């Protein structure tokens, strides 16, 4: 070790803090100049931590489930009647849906309709929240050789969840439709009018830019639009709900606050690269 005088050592000790503060500013510049650097560092860390979180997720999930089932015991009777009613209603809808589906198939056959290709998908477990304070995203554990690419579309059993924005060796990050940076072209199902769904980091994203005269109706279903080639048409997103300030919002069909398993679909679309998370410059090197 180099021997320094006491004065020199004290001066050095005093200098460390200002130098490191300057280094943090340098790091900010570096992060802005090379957006991929931060992304790679993040995904490398996520790859390291994901197996631990995945291993912990199961016992923690069991614990949550047992707590939930204990509280469920209280209102099991009321729940039962509610479910019976709902089942009755859904049965009626099922027969209608089956009839309509059969009719739809017949009509398509008559029209020489070219069917959409069946998309391939992989199912993945959500292992952690990957949003931080200023973003809404989840981390998926996908195993090695997964073949997931940026821009693929994540759905849960009820509706659209978001898009894959970052891919690591064993993990993938999905930016949710509620994120501040999320912009999704949508169609209002009754009026077939186009609009844009804008995330706000809140629980319900907002609808904007709908066509004049096609005002979103309360309860109207909202589905994705194939415009711009970012999404396939007609993926369910949610239903319109007017907020207290009379702003049309969408209540997402997907259970975004307790995602457990999502499916990542490859529709072979490459229209738009995935939205950037805060603090990134657009990735010009493509995906």
């Amino acid at each position: 070790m180099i021997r320094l005088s006491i004065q020199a050592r004290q001066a050095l000790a005093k200098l460390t803090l200002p130098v490191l503060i300057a280094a943090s500013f340098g790091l900010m510049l570096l992060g802005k100049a090379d957006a991929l650097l931060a992304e790679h560092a993040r995904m490398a860390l996520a790859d390291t931590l994901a197996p631990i979180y995945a291993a912990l997720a199961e016992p923690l999930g069991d614990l949550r489930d047992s707590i939930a089932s204990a509280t469920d015991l209280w209102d099991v009777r009321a729940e039962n009647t509610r479910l019976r009613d709902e089942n009755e209603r859904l049965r009626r809808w099922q027969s209608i849906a089956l009839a309509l589906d059969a009719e739809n198939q017949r009509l398509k056959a008559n029209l020489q309709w070219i069917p959409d290709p069946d998309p391939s998908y992989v199912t993945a477990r959500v292992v952690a929240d990957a949003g931080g304070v200023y973003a809404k995203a989840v981390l998926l554990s996908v195993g090695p050789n997964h073949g997931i690419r940026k821009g693929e579309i994540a759905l849960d059993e009820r509706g659209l969840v978001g898009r894959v924005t970052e891919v690591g060796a064993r993990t993938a990050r999905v930016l949710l439709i509620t994120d501040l940076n999320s912009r999704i072209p949508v169609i209002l199902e009754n009026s077939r009018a186009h609009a844009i769904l804008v995330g706000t980091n809140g629980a319900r994203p907002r609808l904007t830019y709908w066509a004049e005269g096609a005002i979103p109706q309360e309860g109207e279903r909202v589905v994705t639009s194939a415009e711009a080639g970012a999404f396939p048409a007609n993926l369910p997103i949610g239903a319109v709900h007017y907020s207290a300030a009379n702003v049309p919002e969408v209540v997402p069909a997907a259970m975004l606050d307790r995602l457990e398993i999502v499916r990542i679909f490859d529709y072979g679309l490459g229209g738009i690269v995935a939205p950037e998370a805060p603090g990134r410059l657009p990735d010009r090197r493509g995906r």
Partner: protein
Amino acid sequence: MAAADQTPGIRPRATLGRRLDIAARQAFPAGCTIALMLLTETPFGIADQATLLPAVTLACVYFWSLYRPAAIPPPVVFLIGLLFDLLGYLPLGVGPLTLLVVYGLALRWRRPLTAQGFATGWLAFAGFAAGGAVLCWVLAALLSFRLLPLGPALFEAALATALYPALAISLIRAHRTVADPERA
């Protein structure tokens, strides 16, 4: 080791076990901060769990810069900040800067803050938490060129202030027992 050698007195021989013991005690503050940060990212399924990470990190760095600044020198604070950025999905550099500012100010006001009991330290931490959260918010907004909602930052400050006593009490225990190099 170096600090221990500067005080006169009779000490047991520096065997390997003893040196390891002292090293472990000196690494405790940084180690427990990092362990707590990783713990907050574990999927417990709590609502707004992402806010726990900045709250716990700020509280730990503030606590150790008041009670044992020698154990977390600025380079370690910088590394903790970097981990904070990566785990919290903030733009790079925001965490190191915020934590270093908190560390520097806490170090400067160390004597008045620790001399007047726990309540003063807690009150001052409320100010540090608010300042830290707002600084993070400003930097994140500047670096992503957009106005971010201020609500999460205020919630973060409130959560950090609320968590501080519980965290500080267990850390003071550790500071006096398992983390004390004098007791090696």
